[in-house]
C-alpha cells in the first residue's frame, strides 16, 4: 500500500511527464492551472493518465474545486 507521500510523488512525476516540464519545477502546493498554464479540459486529460497509472476510476467531480497536487493526491489515495 502506497503512502500519501508516495502517491503525491507519483502524481507529480506523471504531471511533469504529461505536460512536458521538469519534475523539479513542480511542488505539492502548486496551483497546476497557473503553474502549467492549462485549462480544465487539459486537467481532465491528466486525470485519465492518473487513472491508468493507479488502476482506479476517478469521477470527473473529484477534480471539482481541486487545483493543487496535494489535494489531488489525497483524493486518489482515498480510492486506493
Amino acid at each position: 500500500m502506497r503512502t500519501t507521500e508516495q502517491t503525491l510523488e507519483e502524481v507529480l512525476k506523471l504531471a511533469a511527464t504529461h505536460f512536458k516540464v521538469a519534475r523539479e519545477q513542480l511542488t505539492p502546493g502548486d496551483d497546476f492551472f497557473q503553474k502549467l498554464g492549462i485549462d480544465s479540459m487539459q486537467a481532465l486529460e491528466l486525470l485519465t493518465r492518473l487513472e491508468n497509472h493507479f488502476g482506479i476510476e476517478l469521477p470527473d467531480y473529484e477534480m471539482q474545486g481541486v487545483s493543487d497536487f496535494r489535494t489531488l493526491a489525497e483524493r486518489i489515495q482515498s480510492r486506493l
Partner: protein
Amino acid sequence: MLDLRQYASLGGALRDALERWPNETCLIEADRERENCRLTYRQFREAALPLARALQEMGFAQGSRVAIIMTNQSKWLISAYAVFYGGGVLVPLDYKLTPREHLQLLAHSEARFLMVEYHLWRALTQTVGFQHLRVEEVLVTEAPPGADLTGAHSTSSGQARRWEECRASREPDFVPRDRTDPAAIVYSSGTGGQPKGCVLTHENYLEQCMALTSLYPFWPGVRYLSILPTNHAIDFMVGFIGPFTCGAAVVHLRTLRPEYVRDAFSRYKITYMSLVPMVLKNLERGLRARFAELPWHRRFILNRLIALNRRLTRKRPRLALSRLLLRGVHQAFGGELRALFVGGAFTEPATLQFFYDLGIPVSNGYGLTEAGTAVTLDDFNPFRPDTVGKPLPGMEVRIIAPDADGIGEVAVRSKTVMSHYLDQPELTAETIVDGWLQTGDLGRLDPTGHLQLFGRKKNMIVTAGGKNIYPEDIETVFEGLAVKEFCVFAANYLWPQRGRVREQLVLVLRLEAGKKFTDALRADLVARNRRLLDFKRVGGYVIWERDFPRTASLKIKRNLLAEEIRDRLDRADAVVPL
C-alpha cells in the same frame, strides 16, 4: 416535429412528444465504455410518471419550485419532465458551483424540493450554513447502499429520500399551465450579494425552440451529444426541449474527458453538439496534433484536400462533398455530424475557419439566459466567422446609441425574453426597458444583418468556458485583507477594448497610509485567490494611491473609480500579475 404554436406549456408539449414517438430512442447515457441506460420515449414516460406521482403525494403542487443539482444524465431530464408534468417550476442549478453557492441559490429560489446527486448532496451537508437549508423534500440519486441520508433537517423525516425509490403507482395528475406562467428560474450568474434568477416562462421556451429548430431541425434518428451542463440555457434547449419535441435522441456522457467525448462521436453517430470555445479549442488542438503526426506525404495530400474543400464550400457548406473529400476526418467524428454550435464566450475566427475548412460547420452564436438562449446564430449563408451570425426568426435586435462606427449596446426584443429577475423589480426595470432587453454587450449590425460583438459595457467577464463572472461576487473572498480598501474590476471595463480578448479580473488595492505592498500581503492575496474556482480567479492587482469615491451610505462608486483609474493609469504598466 410538434407544432409548438398549439401548446401552452412545456409539460403539454413533452407529454405529446412521449406519446407520438413511443418506440424512438430519446436518451442514451454512457460512462466511459459502459452504457448506463438507453430509453425510448415510452420508457422515459414510464420512468418519469411514477416520480411525478410520488412528488404529488409528497405535497408537490402547481407552482412548486424544484431545484435540480446533477451532472448531465438521464435522471436530470426525467426529473425535469416530472416537474413540468405536475405544473411545477424548475430551478436548475449549475453542479459546478461550490456547495456554499448552491446553498445561497437554494435559499434565494425558495425551492421546496431538491433533487441532487449523492456526492453533491454530501458536499452540501458538510458546508457551513447547511443547517439553514429550507427545502421540504430532498431526493438523492445514486446513493450507495447503506449511505447515510440523514441530515435533511427541514424535511418531515429529517432525512433525504432515495430518488430511485420515489415511485408511486397511481397515474399522476397532469397540471396545465399558461404560456405566461413561469417554467424555470435560471441563475445566469452572480452568487454573492445579488443572485440573478431569470424567470423564464413556458412561452419563452416554446418560442425559442421554434426559432432554433427552424434553422437547425431535429428529427427521429438525430442524436445530440450533451456535454454543456443541462442547467445552462443552451443545453436545456438543444439538449432536451429541442430534440424531445422532434422525436430525436440525447446522448449524455458521465465523463467529459476529451478522449471519451471524441469516442462518443463515432460510437453514437452524433449529429449535433453544443460546446463552449474552450472545448472547441481543445478539439482543434487534438486534431492538429493528429495531423502533425501523419507521414509527410499523407499530410501533404490532406492539406491539398482541405484547400480544395475550402474553395468548394466558400459560398455554403456542402456536407456530402466534404464527407467524400475528407472521409477520414469525418469518420473520426462518426460520419453523421452536421454541425457544432458554439457560444457563451468569444470564439476565435481562426478556430471556426479551421473546422469549416474540414467541412464541419461550427455555428457561432450569441445569447444570454435573459433572452431565453440564443439571439443570433450563423446560418452559413454565407459562413461569417467574424460575426456571431444573424438574429434568429422572431428576434428583433437593435443597437442603442451607436457611435460613429455604428457600435453601441445590443438590445433584444422577442417572445423569448425572460419575464423578470426573481425578487428584483428594480434590476428588472433597468434591464428590460419598453420591452427591450438591454444586454450590456457592445455590438454592431453590419449591412448584411450580421451581428459583431466588441466587448461589454458591464463590469463583467465571460470566461472561455462560457461562465459569466461579476467582479462584485469575487470580492467576498478578499474581505479582511490587510489594506485600507479594495475593489475588483474586469480589466476590460477599466480599460475598454475593441475586442473580446484578454479578459481578466484585477484587484485594485488602496494600501493603509504609509504602508508598502509586502511579500506577506502578496502571499495572502495568492492564498485567498486560490479559494476561488480556477475560472473565477483574479489575474493581477493594481496599487491605487487615492481614496475610493463613495456614496453617502459608503458604497464604492464603481463607475467613478473606474473612470479615475482609466484616466490616470495605463493597463500595461499598472497591472501586476498574481
